[in-house]
């Protein structure tokens, strides 16, 4: 019996975007990173229909985190007080393709640092590494609105990815990202309609849809990953059927979420294997699982999980 032809021809595709600006483009990055562009679901169709290689953004925090588990502290202890060195270590030793500066330290409940601090951190990291940056606020709307515009300005023209904007807080960051030539992250709580709505709000302000990356609250393996998984699959399918409001590449926050899991943190768990192995593997599994649904940028933390996931990506997106 001859094989039937697969006629699943999709009309749409995921937007392809290039982050980072090199000297020729008015920035100081030594390389750019292109993501997106999928014309089919993951492993669907032919190799040519696949997205650009998904990339890993490693987290660098603006102040020393106080609640990180030992496995992570061990990996970064010597650089945790210096975001510049921290970023350098991620890029040079662990192969980070992007650095995500997570401004936890500006949160009023954490270190309540001011805009000067955040600007200094941004400048430091820009100087110490050549990869494109992601600039991620503290999720305190008021404080983010004070600080993130300054951060944006400090990286003006570098074509960073900056976020996040949400349904209730999007105006100031959208305006400043537009002015400074950055890309935006739009956030939704595992909800396609809200994600669309946020994209529409930004677009109504004149922000180009082609410069948005979507972020759906990530669930870790064992803690709701199936919801994130299905949302990402549905988003990919929407993009492929031509929905322009859903044609953005996707970013997920695997590092933060998976290191909250009991399996990654619980020291004494007979029969589960050593804690030193469990944490990194929980993070790696969460990342690989979401890659199957269709994500383009993964935020990660542990060097060993990064190595496993990069190795996987290199095999399948070569």
């Amino acid at each position, binding site marked *: *019996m001859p*094989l*039937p032809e*697969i006629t*699943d021809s999709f009309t749409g595709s995921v937007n392809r975007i290039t982050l980072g600006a090199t000297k020729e483009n008015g920035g100081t990055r030594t390389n750019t990173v292109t993501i997106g562009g999928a014309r089919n*679901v*993951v*492993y*669907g169709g*032919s*190799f040519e229909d696949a997205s650009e290689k998904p990339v890993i953004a490693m987290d660098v925090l603006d102040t020393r985190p106080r*609640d990180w588990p030992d496995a992570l502290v061990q990996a970064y202890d010597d650089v945790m007080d210096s975001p510049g060195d921290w970023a350098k270590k991620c890029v040079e030793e662990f192969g980070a393709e992007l650095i995500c500066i997570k401004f936890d330290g500006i949160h009023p*409940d954490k270190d309540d640092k001011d805009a000067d601090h955040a600007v200094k951190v941004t400048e430091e990291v820009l100087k110490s590494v050549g990869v494109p940056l992601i600039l991620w606020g503290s*999720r305190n709307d008021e404080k983010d609105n004070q600080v993130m515009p300054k951060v944006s300005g400090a990286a003006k023209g570098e074509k960073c990815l900056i976020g996040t904007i949400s349904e209730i807080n999007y105006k100031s960051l959208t305006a400043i990202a537009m002015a400074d030539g950055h890309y935006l992250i739009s956030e939704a709580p595992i909800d396609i309609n809200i994600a669309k709505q946020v994209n529409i709000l930004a677009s109504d302000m004149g922000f180009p849809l082609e410069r948005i990356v979507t972020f759906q609250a990530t*669930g870790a*393996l*064992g*803690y*709701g*990953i*199936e*919801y994130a*998984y*299905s949302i990402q*699959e*549905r988003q990919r*399918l929407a993009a492929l059927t031509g929905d322009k409001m859903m044609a953005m590449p996707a970013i997920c926050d695997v590092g933060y979420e998976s290191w*909250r899991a009991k*399996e990654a943190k619980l020291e004494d768990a007979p*029969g*589960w*294997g*050593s804690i030193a*192995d*469990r944490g*990194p*593997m*929980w993070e*790696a*599994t969460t990342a*690989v*699982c979401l*890659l*199957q*649904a269709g994500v383009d940028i993964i935020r990660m933390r542990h060097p*060993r999980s990064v*190595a*496993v*996931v990069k*190795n*996987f990506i290199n*095999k*399948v997106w*070569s």
Partner: protein
Amino acid sequence: MALTGLEIFKLLPKTNCKKCGKPTCLAFAMALAQKRAKLEECPDVSDEAKEKLSAASAPPMRKVIFGTGDHQVQVGQETVCFRHEEKFHNPAVLGVTVSDKLDAEAMKKRIESINSLQFERIGIKIGVRTITIVNDSGSPELFAKAAEAVKEGSDLAIILVTDLPDAMAAAVTKVKDRIPLIGCATPKNAEAMAKIAAENKCPLIAKAESIEALSELTEKISGSGVEDIVLTIDGESVKDKLYNYSRIRVLSLKKGFRPLGYPTISFVTGSDDDQVALGVSCICKYSGIVIVDTIEPYALLPMLTAVMNIFTDPQKPVQVEPKIYSIGEPDENSPVMFTTNFSLTYYTVESDVEASRIPSYILVVDTEGTSVLTAYSGDKLNEKTVADAMKKYGIESMVKHRKLIIPGYVAVMSGKLEEATNWEIMVGPRECSMLPKYLKEVWN
């Protein structure tokens, strides 16, 4: 592939005798196509029509069963490519290899380690469900001996893997009462392997290097009377294999292509860490059975959890048991808060309460697995359900104070809840992530 009403009509007697209760054969055909009628309701339908109709209504992917008793496993019968479309039916089966080259001692140890790869998550048992004996030695005697040792040492469902029909014949006789899955039949040895499978009534793995070769192979195998087939691709790269499994899924489900309408099995190799990554990819993208070499619990636990998550029914939210959960070691002065039994909601609250390092009680109210806002608007979370749960699980005797922290999203129910319980109601934050700060501020 399902037939249309007109296609079915052509197969009916066309006498309009009304014995089926429908006015005409055409009306009956339409009802059949929409599954509103059963073929048996027409007494005059021919045997030929029966056969054609039942073939057309057979599931697009066959169900394959192996193993016996409590350890029987079932794979296949999937109906969709994306879990949100309906659900994935049979959770991927995870298995671990045993080489027949191991000496008796090492083999015994390995079998024991594999048996112990069982875990419990949120009250559900998950674990390795099959043990795969590999004929690395090429010797029929050693393969048979290994089969005996596994049969002796483990109740798990057995898979026998060799390309040599001689070796297969020797081993399968030792374990055929356990109904092993056997393989692999290749274009070269298909006849001999199919014969062994038929004689011993075992399902058979078909292995080929391309989808084209594989579909020819399954036609050959089913032609010789073996219907229970599991597919595997012997491609060069992992990438090829993953794309091919996706094509098989689409061809069988969307195109109704029978020669590929079977479940699949993947054999994953590499370092322990790499096996986890590849294993998870195979679990998500369409391998009904995934066989690994690693016996590290840290590697198996995340893979098994991935199976559990990806194969849950998206229509039925995962729930936690409604009761009072102690976080840390709370005492009679510890805070009490409630949330719903939607697992995602509960685990988010739990992890943020843990992060606060303030020992607490979380009262989980049965809201049929819905989140706080959904439960509230569906009237599953109201002053009565909360008060009932407080009583039922005896929170009054666990704390001295009478203060209840409620989710910020349902601040509106404070008044009624206070009346219903006589407890002081404290409105917590809307976002769980603010719980640590909230608890530190209000509970000192």
